[in-house]
């Protein structure tokens, strides 16, 4: 079948898309029910997640199979690169929206609230704040404890991942495995510390705008780290099975791009959510 590399690979009909749609339907429906205190929502949500996991497993398995069977020619590889690149761009915009919201609140909205003295006679715009109606003082998260350590962890993980990539270029299996394993470990430690930080925090999601932005932004970032870690684990697994070669390893590179992107988002979070 390798003679097909001249042609762009066109997959046979596939049911995975339909399964994806079922998974998202169950997840969305279940989530809506769950949020509105309909008890069975949890089960629907769970069913959706299970279908989703099955979908990821099955679909990726099929793609990996096609990839190692050599169906993908150079042009397909380029498509994957464009695809991943634009996907990351969409993620950039997702976080950009959040950061825009944060800047807007901090530079404009709080100022306007403090000037609306007819409604809030005593509010002074500061950051962090839980807003003019808050009754308790806000104990914000300082940057130089766990968050700084987490920054370091993510920065180092970027380096270990690059180390693994170099290993891949040289086809040095040991180096790849060490690099990847270290990266995964660092990602997991990061997640652990983040969970710890949440547990210890003196404020919650409903502590006004500070709590809202803090948890939503770091939460979404954490979700991305978790996904990245899982993807790295899959890559490690594939390396162990001997899947990639020095010039054919886009799966590895895609995950690496993603990981670096998540890193950069963290740097912004560190500066604008924790520090300034």
């Amino acid at each position: 079948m390798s003679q097909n590399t001249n042609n762009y690979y066109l997959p046979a009909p596939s049911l995975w898309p339909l399964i994806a749609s079922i998974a998202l339907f169950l997840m969305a429906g279940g989530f809506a029910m769950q949020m509105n205190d309909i008890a069975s929502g949890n089960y629907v949500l769970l069913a959706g997640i299970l279908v989703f996991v099955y979908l990821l497993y099955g679909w990726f398995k099929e793609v990996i199979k096609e990839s190692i069977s050599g169906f993908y020619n150079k042009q397909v590889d380029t498509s994957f690169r464009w695809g991943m690149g634009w996907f990351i761009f969409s993620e950039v915009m997702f976080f950009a929206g959040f950061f825009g919201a944060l800047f807007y609140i901090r530079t404009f909205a709080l100022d306007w609230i403090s000037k609306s003295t007819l409604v809030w006679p005593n509010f002074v715009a500061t950051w962090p704040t839980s807003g003019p109606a808050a009754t308790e003082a806000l104990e914000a998260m300082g940057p130089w404890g766990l968050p700084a350590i987490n920054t370091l962890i993510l920065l180092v993980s970027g380096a270990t991942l690059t180390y693994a990539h170099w290993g891949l270029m040289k086809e040095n299996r040991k180096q790849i495995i060490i690099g990847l394993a270290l990266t995964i470990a660092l990602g997991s430690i990061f997640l652990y510390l983040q969970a710890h930080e949440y547990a210890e925090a003196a404020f919650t999601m409903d502590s006004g705008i500070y709590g809202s932005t803090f948890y939503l932004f770091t939460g979404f970032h954490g979700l991305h780290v978790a996904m990245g870690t899982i993807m790295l684990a899959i890559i490690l697994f594939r390396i162990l099975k001997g899947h990639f070669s020095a010039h054919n390893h886009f799966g590895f590179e895609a995950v690496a791009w993603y990981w670096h992107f998540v890193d950069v988002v963290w740097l912004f979070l560190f500066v604008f959510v924790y520090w300034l």
Partner: protein
Amino acid sequence: MNKRTILSLGATFLSLFAVNSHADYALNLKAPATEIAGQIYGLHMLILWVCVAIFVVVFSLMFYSILKHRKSVGHKAAQFHENHWLEVIWTIIPVIILVCMAYPATKTILAMKDTSAEDMSIKITGSQWKWAYDYLDQDVKFISTLSTPQDQIENKAEKGENYLLEVDNPMVVPVGKKVKLLITSQDVNHAWWIPEFGVKQDAIPGFVKEVWIRVEQPGVYRGQCAELCGKAHGYMPIVVEAKPEAEYQTWVAAQKDAAAAADAGADKEWVMDELVTAGKAVYEKNCAVCHGATGAGIPPAFPAMTGSTVANGPVEGHIDILLNGKNIMPAWKDVLNDTDIAAVIAYERNALGNSTGDFAQPSAVKAAR
């Protein structure tokens, strides 16, 4: 289709040909009553005619071409597909036109935004679905709600002249004075809008936004809430009466007297029937939009009053929810006086299918504030 429909249909088509035959038939912005509204009117006319002119030029060319350059009259297609000079020209000319529009617009914006040197200030608070006016320098406060009877809305009665554009207590301003309006909201976004003034300002909960007016002619001006604010968004009109200074002062004095009388009422001892009767009016005006004229509510969002555990429970709880509100239920503390609150409580507990037989004196409400 009933007869009236057919008649008005006919009238409609006729009116297309005889624009002036119909009294309240409007094709353009309302006649301005402030300087700013006048500028806006002028701007609109300017832009409208510029656009019409460009439109006529562009589409005369197109229709000329459609007529002459068609295959059926034997026209052969030319093959040009570029002309740099032409393209540059039709980019530059519109830029110039736009600059000519932007310049006067900018001047008007700067004037609109200048809220300094005001003669007086009124705080306007929107809430579902009424407007509260608070004359900051005068100690005059009142609420203004739709006064069109429900029967007209439900097509059971002939509609009045100012159908949906009439209120019980209009806002009153003196003519010729620069009045600063401080606009805010209690619950969701609303927008305070009087077309003749050229003012439309969203009322945003938690924020106070400033605009100003200086009305030039005495008169009655009507507008509507202009931001979707829930089910009665269409029933939230605004009416402003502009009066000469002297009449305005008389009005202020009268408002103050009425407020003093209401205060005196709060210290009086009331009997239940008096309160229930007074409460009916308060209820229908303020509460019926959500809880229904018969107290049936609109479950699940708006609970029924009939059989409500609060309206049939301890009176303290009833006072509390009225004063302070709960979730979507508004707080009435700053809106209704003690007598009104006591009255509506008495009404809810002893009418609308409830009969607890108890009630609270206005003094008890005063104490609970």
